[in-house]
């Protein structure tokens, strides 16, 4: 078998290991899923009416849940990525990683297996979040093509965030440290177009940030695909950000994993 075949096979082995972990200790997965669902219920049920009145026509759609759901979807990816950072950091503190390093296996396979596992879990979470959103009134205008495109954007975002948080997990010395680092991608959507259009944010600095941070074009693209709002250049920006973040995360994680400790 070729090196590549072995790399794929080793990654698959690592993926199975990751799945077993998730299956045996589902708490992390469940808590990363509960948070976006709670936020969905909170913003729709508690703040929804006030926000819709405040936003008026700026929200661009009749129902706030339609505006909200794409943003919550993006936050789902953020929260899942957070658990990835913790899992990777936990793993690194165990001797098992040192064992993998002394074995003739593809070095990237340990991380790749983790990323595939995390992406799978996030995708399931995303589907559940959309399901709950539909139960409380979310109505999509998307046809099959739009759904597939939206799923594609969501997967790209998840892969980008996961590689980035794998690097966070490798960088941090303790799982608590990994958690704090990973809060950044989990909470950046709060200052974006997730809950209100970025243009309606009062403060100039915050408005500029919200309009230009990576999550805003991604959310706007998902919103456009799912609810028919105009996408414009957001689509290109979304793909660009995802590709760039994936590249940064991947290269960073690889170099952190290959470094001989202590640095």
């Amino acid at each position: 078998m070729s090196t590549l075949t072995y790399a794929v096979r080793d990654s698959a082995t690592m993926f199975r290991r990751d799945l077993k972990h998730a299956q045996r200790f589902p708490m992390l997965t469940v808590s990363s899923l509960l948070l976006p669902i709670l936020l969905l219920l909170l913003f729709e049920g508690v703040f929804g009416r006030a926000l819709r009145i405040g936003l008026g026509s700026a929200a661009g759609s009749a129902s706030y849940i339609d505006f909200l759901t794409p943003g919550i979807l993006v936050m789902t990816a953020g929260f899942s990525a957070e658990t990835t950072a913790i899992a990777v950091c936990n793993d690194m503190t165990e001797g098992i990683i040192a064992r993998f390093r002394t074995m003739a296996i593809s070095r990237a396979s340990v991380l790749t297996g983790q990323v595939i596992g995390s992406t799978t879990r996030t995708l399931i979470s995303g589907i559940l979040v959309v399901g709950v959103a539909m139960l409380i009134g979310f109505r999509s205008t998307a046809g099959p093509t739009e759904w597939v495109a939206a799923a594609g954007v969501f997967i790209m975002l998840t892969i980008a965030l996961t590689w980035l948080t794998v690097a966070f997990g490798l960088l941090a010395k303790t799982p608590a440290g990994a958690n704090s680092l990973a809060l950044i991608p989990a909470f950046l959507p709060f200052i974006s177009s997730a809950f209100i259009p970025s243009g309606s944010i009062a403060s100039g600095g915050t408005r500029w940030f919200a309009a230009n941070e990576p999550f805003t074009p991604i959310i706007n693209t998902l919103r456009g695909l799912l609810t028919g709002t105009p996408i414009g250049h957001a689509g290109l920006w979304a793909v660009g950000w995802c590709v760039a973040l994936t590249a940064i995360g991947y290269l960073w994680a690889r170099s952190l994993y290959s470094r001989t400790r202590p640095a």
Partner: protein
Amino acid sequence: MTIHKAPTGPGHKASPAARPAIAASGLRKSFGDHLVLDGIDLDVAEGTIFALLGPNGSGKTTTVRILSTLITADAGAVKVAGHDLAAEPGKVRAAIGVTGQFSAVDGYLTGEENLLLMADLHHLSRAQGKRRAAELLDQFDLAEAGKKIALTYSGGMRRRLDLAMTLVGNPRLIFLDEPTAGLDPRSRRTMWEIIAGLAASGVTIFLTTQYLEEADQLADQIAVLDHGQLVAQGTADELKRLIAGGHVLLRFGAESALDQAAALFGSAAARDDEALTLQIPSDGGVRSLKELLDLLDSRAIAVETLTVHTPDLDDVFLAITGHDRETDQDQVSAQSLESSEL
């Protein structure tokens, strides 16, 4: 004081033509300003047990980490299992098995799943993997525990699983970094039996230990590492021969008695004022003991207890390095540095 001698111990099964399992020369490694390995040479014959013996912080773990491709040396030429360590780390990895000092099992998987994970990574087929896992669970007395997750295992069970995982790929050369550290005496005995059994099947074993008894029990060749340098090398018997003989330890009830006895035996005896003991060189034979007691009796010196001490590797270590094993402050700080590297 280094002994260089052709290996002649009874445990040697290697033919003279056998290539060395490990050949290292001038191995050096520093972490920052701290010099951990100061140019060591190692020569391990195939099919033998080689023990690297030294106190905490002497550089044992660093040596294993270098030889097992985990970190790179600053200088030195090393061949492991016939492959150049720097040029072909992948080939080295394919030939070795490593059981580190800290448990390298996946706590969230069962014992069996851990072994199957290793089988998958060695690219065994499903059936082969299952067979190998069952074999090893049996061999390591883990058949019952195989279905339980490893987090619930005792220290001894974890260590056995760890070693079983190392063996899944049938490596010809195994590194064991302090294989019995922290184990209770019974588990340690079991581990010794396992290691001796592996060696009997032809596997080369490179182990580190700070237990002199362990090196004595298991190893064909012993190298003594101290502050990053090899201070002695040879078979257990050769090392023991460095010590002229054993000693008798006398403990006294009063300082006056110790004074009297110390004056009697002169500079040959080593006195310890705190413990009120005097250590006198002796072969431990009945005749010399009787002479000793008669002499003390004739001077009416009251002795509380007498212990006969035949030479062991502790004495060797003391004789070679000039200090006790675990009292050196330097070593304590060096140890904490070494463990923080992990």
